[in-house]
């Protein structure tokens, strides 16, 4: 209950004109990022992180900007998906399957309105889950010892590898462990020994997350977009009534609640993003639907399921991020880096060190969902025009932003070179079926894993027994075994 009171307090305190203006701008930017194929929420958050850090914005204003882009981009994918059958993001692809046929039937406006309302409700569902789960999970996390932290980080890397590998899970694990290996580059924190620096002074401080994320997510996207066949934007179907039907919403309450729960649950699994949430929720809705025949021909229930889940996933992804320091989705990975850059360390000590931070994040997410609702309706009719920006013009500008973003992090051209090299490596890895998300999560969680493993071994004179005798550790060992043998069923 106290969390809800704190949340209400922060909701009012944060509503300064400057903060709301920043939020408005970032929501619009996020919707553009989500709507344009090739630009993702992760990339939006990554690019904006360097800007908020460089201009020394306050933590809450920075979070307003970053959460705005995150929420806007996850939602923005539904516009091109429904109107043009071009999903702006992977999460929007499930919406396109049902949304575009609806648009062809002249119900595009209704589909966008329904998607907007359900995205709003999905985000609020995530906020509610955050406020409900975080205090409980924070208390549990305080019981964690070094061995549990190590196992948690390892579980995060491995489950992310299992779930995001497009080919065989072993490739996902290799990517995650490769990230952990890259995290060992630099000066060892205990002994001050330089590892794998090859005499390069810039590597002594270790590999920085921003060039890795920009290189890993932006460069492969630029390469793919510019080298594949570029289709000129199709003319969208006209939008008629931009209003959701109350009856349709009422009929889909059950689907919305189930999708919200699935979104939060999937979001809280480390590194698994909104796209998987949307697809799994869509698949489940189809399976339990009273009218399965409508699916593929334009089912509003399908739109409701996908859009509620992908936005509920945002709140879900913030739960492990804030309580354990483990990001729940790729954009949340970037958010973790941004939060740490601003001097706040997410984890079980967060409620003690910054008691206002978690309710603040919940309040920011609520403001973001409200602005998304308003902006979503406002830009629906003009969003099609944004989609006419050709890829060959857009992507060179993204490349320019990527170079400036890597440089602006600490004014070093080494970061830009690293970003370019890492980007090419990421592209080659993806082409060979090795996913990038576990690699990035490995780099972020690597130091936590190593530090805690060494501490646990020192505490127990090199014995591995406590990893199996403590109940929480044992539970993580079981989860890790599960993640190793769990094979994702792809629909």
């Amino acid at each position, binding site marked *: 209950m106290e969390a809800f009171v704190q949340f209400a307090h922060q909701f009012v305190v944060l509503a300064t004109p400057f903060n709301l203006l920043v939020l408005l701008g970032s929501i619009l930017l996020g919707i553009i990022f989500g709507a344009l194929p090739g630009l993702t929420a992760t990339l939006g958050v990554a690019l904006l992180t360097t*800007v908020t850090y*460089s*201009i020394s914005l306050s933590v809450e204003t920075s979070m307003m900007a970053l959460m705005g882009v995150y929420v806007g981009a996850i939602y923005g994918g539904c516009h091109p998906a429904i109107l043009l059958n071009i999903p702006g993001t992977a999460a929007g692809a499930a919406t396109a399957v049902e949304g575009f046929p609806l648009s062809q039937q002249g119900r595009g406006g209704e589909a966008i309105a329904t998607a907007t309302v359900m995205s709003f409700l999905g985000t609020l569902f995530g906020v509610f889950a955050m406020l409900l789960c975080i205090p409980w999970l924070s208390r549990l996390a305080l019981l964690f010892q070094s061995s549990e932290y190590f196992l948690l980080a390892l579980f995060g890397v491995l489950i992310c590898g299992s779930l995001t590998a*497009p*080919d*065989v899970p*072993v*490739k996902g*694990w*290799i990517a995650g*462990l*490769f990230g*952990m*290996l890259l995290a*060992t580059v630099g000066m*060892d924190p*205990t*002994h*001050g*020994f330089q*590892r*794998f620096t090859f005499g390069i002074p810039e590597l002594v401080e270790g590999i920085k997350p921003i060039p890795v994320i920009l290189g890993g997510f932006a*460069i492969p996207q*630029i*390469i793919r977009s*510019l*080298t594949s066949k*570029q289709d000129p934007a199709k003319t969208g179907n006209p939008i008629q009534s931009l209003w959701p039907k109350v009856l349709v919403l009422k009929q889909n309450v059950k689907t919305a609640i189930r999708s919200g729960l699935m979104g939060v649950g999937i979001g809280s699994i480390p590194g698994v993003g909104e796209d998987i949430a949307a697809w799994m929720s869509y698949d489940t809705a189809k399976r339990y639907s009273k009218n399965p025949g409508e699916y593929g021909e334009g089912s509003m229930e399908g739109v409701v399921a996908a859009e509620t889940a992908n936005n509920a996933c945002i709140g879900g992804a913030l739960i492990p991020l804030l309580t354990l320091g483990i990001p729940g989705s790729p954009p949340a990975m970037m958010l973790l880096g941004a939060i740490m850059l601003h001097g706040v360390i997410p984890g079980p000590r967060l409620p003690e060190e910054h008691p206002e931070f978690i309710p603040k994040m919940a309040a920011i997410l609520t403001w973001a969902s409200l602005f998304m609702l308003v902006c979503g309706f406002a830009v629906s009719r003009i969003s099609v025009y944004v989609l006419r920006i050709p890829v*060959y*013009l857009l*992507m*060179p*500008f993204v*490349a*320019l*932003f990527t*170079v*400036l973003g890597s*440089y*602006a992090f600490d*004014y070093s*051209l080494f970061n*830009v*070179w690293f970003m*370019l090299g890492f*980007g*090419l490596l990421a*592209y080659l890895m*993806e*082409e*060979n*079926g*090795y996913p990038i998300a576990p690699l990035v999560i490995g780099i972020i969680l690597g130091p936590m894993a*190593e530090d805690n*493993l*060494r501490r646990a*071994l*020192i505490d127990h004179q*090199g014995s591995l027994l406590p990893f199996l005798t403590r109940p929480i550790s044992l539970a993580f060992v079981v989860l890790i075994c599960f993640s190793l043998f769990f094979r994702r069923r792809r629909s």
Partner: protein
Amino acid sequence: MLERSELRRADIFSGSLISLIGGLTLIGASKMPMGGTYGGVDNPWYASPGAIPLLLGALFILLGLAVVVHGWRQGGGRHLGDGVRCFVRDHDRRRRTLKIGGLWLGLVAYVLLLAWKPFAASSLVFGRVLSAQGHFGFLTEANGANYWISSAIFLTLFVWAFRPGGRVKILSWRSMALATTLWGGPLLLGYLFSVHLHVPLP
């Protein structure tokens, strides 16, 4: 991602490469201090800087071999030499690879221009026409001038290289608008970054 048959063939190469990286990591880790004391700190094997790299190196060798075995079992080993032959014969694939290589080298060339500063001297020209305190005062600095010209050239060449379709009329409203975007875009970004965001340009 590659097609399934090509992927299985590539698995043999990528798995071998991962095992090789694992081996090199093991060699690197074995050279790290292990046992006794280091820097005045007790250094048992489990607390040494090489412990995690050692563990990861060993895992890479095993997992790399698992990828090789998987690729081999799925038929990747049958036509191992076909990959190179297909690449030489397949015009589309060769073209796509060259396009990807060219694109990446274009990005490298852009960063080289930013680092090398061949257009730094133009700051003197801008210094004559712009006041240092004005909106575009950043152009009178070596970094600012070099950034703008390098970025505009990069954007123009990239758009020209990756633009689908046939000929372009240079003297048309469309071309003029495009040129304004390509040269005005980096100017606006430079202005925002250096004047409002206080971020120095590369």
